[in-house]
């Protein structure tokens, strides 16, 4: 019994593990809230695009010896706004605009980095994330930015919901639809940058999409969907870090794969909407 408790407690005796848990839980929770809008609006592609685009900003900041997260954040928000602007012109489709802009910004990042001789692991960690290497400073920055994002969603929930659900009617009601759409894109941008340091560019899209998609299968309204998504994210962080600790595997990948596992469970077993539920009950109804 005591041994079992030790197994549960052991990882958290290490300070870097405690920091990692805190950072991962905060990031995955706020990603699930913003990710709910991302998947409902069919913006999963943009969740993929913004982290890549932010790499361009990270590279510029690296060369200028400025704050890397600030550089990434500026690039992500700028790309988000550009995507909104280009697609609102209506000349090319939304996903085409995303494709062009994010590859462009990502390529710019690679171009800039390729000119640098001191290509350090520090920069490399942005691509694959380094949740075990976050400092207390990173944790507090993450927490503060996440609090701001959540506060904005809470304050403007009504407006974001209306614009996401029915932009024409929202505009007819006099809401500043364009401002709210750009604002939401900017929030997605900032969220992805927060996610960069924990799971990295490649996997941040998973935190935006997977917990929210899991929650969508289990809930019927948006507020519970956000809450359940955040819970799935937090549990994935916790379980993922245990797996990383005991199996000695990459922490960010373990977190994301745990979330994928939760999604698979919901996909199979979700009441009413799960695959097995439908198999079992649909024929019975017909009989």
């Amino acid at each position, binding site marked *: 019994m005591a041994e079992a408790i030790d197994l549960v407690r052991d990882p958290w005796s290490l300070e870097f593990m405690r920091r990692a848990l805190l950072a991962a839980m905060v990031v995955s929770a706020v990603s699930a809230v913003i990710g709910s809008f991302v998947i*409902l609006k069919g913006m999963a592609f943009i969740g993929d695009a913004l982290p890549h685009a932010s790499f361009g900003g990270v590279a510029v900041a690296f060369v200028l010896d400025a704050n890397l997260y600030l550089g990434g954040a500026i690039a992500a928000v700028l790309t988000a706004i550009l995507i909104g602007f280009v697609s609102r012109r*209506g000349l090319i489709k939304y996903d085409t605009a995303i494709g062009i802009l994010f590859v462009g910004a990502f390529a710019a990042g690679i171009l800039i980095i390729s000119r640098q001789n001191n290509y350090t692991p520090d920069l490399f960690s942005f691509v694959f994330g380094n949740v075990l290497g976050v400092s207390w400073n990173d944790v507090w920055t993450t927490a503060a930015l996440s609090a701001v994002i959540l506060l904005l969603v809470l*304050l*403007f929930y*009504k*407006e974001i*919901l*209306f614009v*996401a*659900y*029915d932009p*024409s*009617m*929202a*505009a*007819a*009601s*006099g*809401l500043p639809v364009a401002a709210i759409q750009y604002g939401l894109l900017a929030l997605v941008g900032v969220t992805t940058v927060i996610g960069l340091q924990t799971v990295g560019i490649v996997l941040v899209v998973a935190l935006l999409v997977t917990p929210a998609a899991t929650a*969508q299968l289990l*809930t*019927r*309204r*948006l507020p519970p*969907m956000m809450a359940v998504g955040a819970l799935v994210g937090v549990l994935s962080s916790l379980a993922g870090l245990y797996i990383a600790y005991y199996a000695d595997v990459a922490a960010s990948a373990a977190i994301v794969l745990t979330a994928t596992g939760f999604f698979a469970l919901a996909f199979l077993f979700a009441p009413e909407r799960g695959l097995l539920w439908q198999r079992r009950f649909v024929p019975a109804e017909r009989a």
Partner: protein
Amino acid sequence: MATRDPVLPPPSLALEAQDVWAGYNGHPALEGVTFNIETGCLGGLVGPNGSGKSTLLRVILGLHRPWRGEIRLFGSTERPRRRLGYTPQSEQVDWSFPVTVLDVVLMGRYGRLGLVRRPTAADREIAMGALESVRLTDLAARRIGELSGGQQRRALVARALAQEADLLLLDEPLAGLDATSQHDLLALFEGLRQKGKTLIVATHDLSCVAADFDHAILLNRRVVAFGRPKEVFTEELLNATFERHLLLVRLEDRTYVGHG
């Protein structure tokens, strides 16, 4: 029918469109559209797909800027947003979105609330009242996507009612509904008209307009004809409106219409 005592003063106008031109990327969708709708009327906006019905509704709502011309609502060029209700085409609504019927109807109150403020108990009461008048009270807590087509249209109308709008613009509310649901919806429109609401219903269903509406606007980029359905639903005018999209068959003194 809107029969009126000739001694009474002329009725006020809910909507005046004066030589409205509008379009997209240089291609005209509306060419010199002019017509009036009296307050308390049920007007049918009739035309084939691509005839500019939705564009006209968007211009009236102030969502699309006309190239030239003028829209007056209740005698003013200002948009009285609170008095303007709108239900979009069914295909434009995201029915899979995780919102309940009551959530959707409450959105009718959002325009009045202003930024940040939350709907109050009074707003909920008005929303529930609107649901009652479209007979959806029992389904208030359902997900909007779980409703039948006819119930979904009624929910959208309830949203416009929750807004306490006086002029309702409905984009193809009858499309794709079975006869019973169409009948329910038309009865609802008639009830609203009797309460003094003005309704403009975009549709390509001629029989409904012929039977129940006060006015018909035949639209095909320009106004082909405007008047009482009986007067404007002639073979010549309908052919001019629908061009080759319709098949008209005359039998005795009635015109039967099929989509060609």
